[in-house]
């Protein structure tokens, strides 16, 4: 395929960091395919409206729809999204669900150096205890863990914590992860990659 334009529709604005993962994967699978990427910023609350507006205002070849699995199963979330997609589809766009188990932050708990950099303390001597990859999808508190690891790595007295921007930390962590290959051990990521590969192959046939 010559080039790909995609739009990411996510649960929240901090999930924009997922674009680093999407771009890494697309570049890894299709290194010669230039990508144009957009993040849909929309105020609607309901998923069906959001999906409809995403392709209306951010036309693309592929719409990535992100939903955290949280307490539901991958399949349940996938069905939810697909139900709304059927009605919203306009031209010949494809839709690929991204459903991290349990939430987006899970996919960023894979690289110690990235956490140190995000904490603002690149030479931190603090030992960063990341959960084992094999246990990652069962992990109950990925978000709190991510924040805590960053705080610990920062290793400053409480008042100096002002330098720490936890709001944007997901972005900072994601930016500093060069390879997301470790995620291929996670079932939710495997499903995502599989769907992505099939979709792009389908699109190249046209």
């Amino acid at each position: 395929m010559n080039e790909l334009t995609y739009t990411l529709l996510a649960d929240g604005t901090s999930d924009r960091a997922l674009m680093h993962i999407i771009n890494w994967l697309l570049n890894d699978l299709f290194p010669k395919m230039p990508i144009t990427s957009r993040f849909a910023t929309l105020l609607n609350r309901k998923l069906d409206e959001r999906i409809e507006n995403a392709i209306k205002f951010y036309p693309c070849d592929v719409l990535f729809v992100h939903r955290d699995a949280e307490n539901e199963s991958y399949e349940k979330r996938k069905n939810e999204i697909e139900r709304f997609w059927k009605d919203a589809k306009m031209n010949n766009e494809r839709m690929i669900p991204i459903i991290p188990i349990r939430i987006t932050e899970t996919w960023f708990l894979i690289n110690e150096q990235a956490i140190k950099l995000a904490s603002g303390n690149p030479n931190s001597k603090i030992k960063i205890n990341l959960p084992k990859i094999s246990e990652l999808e069962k992990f109950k508190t990925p978000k709190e863990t991510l924040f805590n690891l960053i705080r610990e790595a920062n290793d400053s007295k409480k008042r100096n914590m002002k330098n720490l921007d936890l709001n944007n930390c997901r972005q900072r962590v994601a930016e500093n992860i060069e390879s997301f290959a470790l995620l291929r051990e996670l079932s939710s990521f495997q499903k995502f990659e599989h769907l992505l590969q099939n979709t792009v192959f389908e699109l190249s046939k046209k």
Partner: protein
Amino acid sequence: MVTYILVLKYVDEDVFIEKEELISQYSNFPDRKKNLFFEKSSQWANAVLKGGASTNKFISTDKEKQTINLYQDKRGGRQYTYPMKKLRRTVLSSATAEYPTAYVVKKEMMSWMILQLEVSDMRKSDDFETRHNATLSETGKYLAATAYRLALENDNDKFYQTLVNKLSALVDNIKSIEVEKDDKRSFLTLFLKFRDGMELPARYLSDGTLRFLALAVLVQDNKSGNLICLEEPENGIHPAKIITVINLLRDIAFDTKSKEIDLLNENLLRQVIINTHSPLVVREVPESNVLVAEIKEYFDEKYDTKYKAAIFRPLNNTWRTNCIPEFYDYKVRALNLGTLLAYLKGENEENEVKTKEKKVKERQDVKENLKLF
């Protein structure tokens, strides 16, 4: 009507010319008119597009021989050949009057201005001697001398009153503007006089006022360049007055839709290019005048690598998307509506910080009533 193409190559920390071309693509008036896609009056087209050289190639590149050639305007005219590797400047920049089209294009491009108005320069008084042929410099020097020359060349009172009227849209209570000569030291100084009697020389005027004055003077100066570039005209301007600045910039440019053409006194080709970060500016400009700069990824077959480059996206359904200029080899893709709307709205949830005290926008009286204004 000519097209100038310059392709530079950056290799080993040095810059080379890979291609230089000056051509006239359309040899007759109807073709030229057809291939200028913006809206224009036939009066303007007639005044601007007729005539020209009998040949259509003025500078061309011979890839095999690695030379760049400069041609005269007439058939069978002389040709000058430059070896590409030895060139330290463009061929266009070396054109002399013997190569009339290339020469005129060179002079034209040399007249283009990038205004980087410096307050310190605009505040200066000018030596009386500089009044001959004084023009506003890129930093705003010679503002006083230029105004003085223009007042002399035109109707003195009309010139200054026009400035007063324009500036009054920005600043209240202006009575008059004048450039006065200090007889002792022969300096020219610009003065602003207010209705309450206060008189301020240029060195006491604010940055915003001086920038505005400089632009207002440019509107009336036909000797100034055909292209004026200005960065972020919104800087230092009250939001409610941004429209005033945009209007002034529009006055500097020649309106190609205009049916009244005064060849002698007007600059038919004058254009203005600005860059901006302000949604307030973007809202006010005509839709086909907007190009949104983005970084886009491409793939290069020759070097087998992805790379990024700037792309300038027009808005959908304007003449810019309804035509495809022949010399572009990519399809121009319009800006998507979502990006435009998010930009115009201006809010950025991601970087928001929760404050202990209510933010201005969170006040109840603001939230409830903002939609009424």
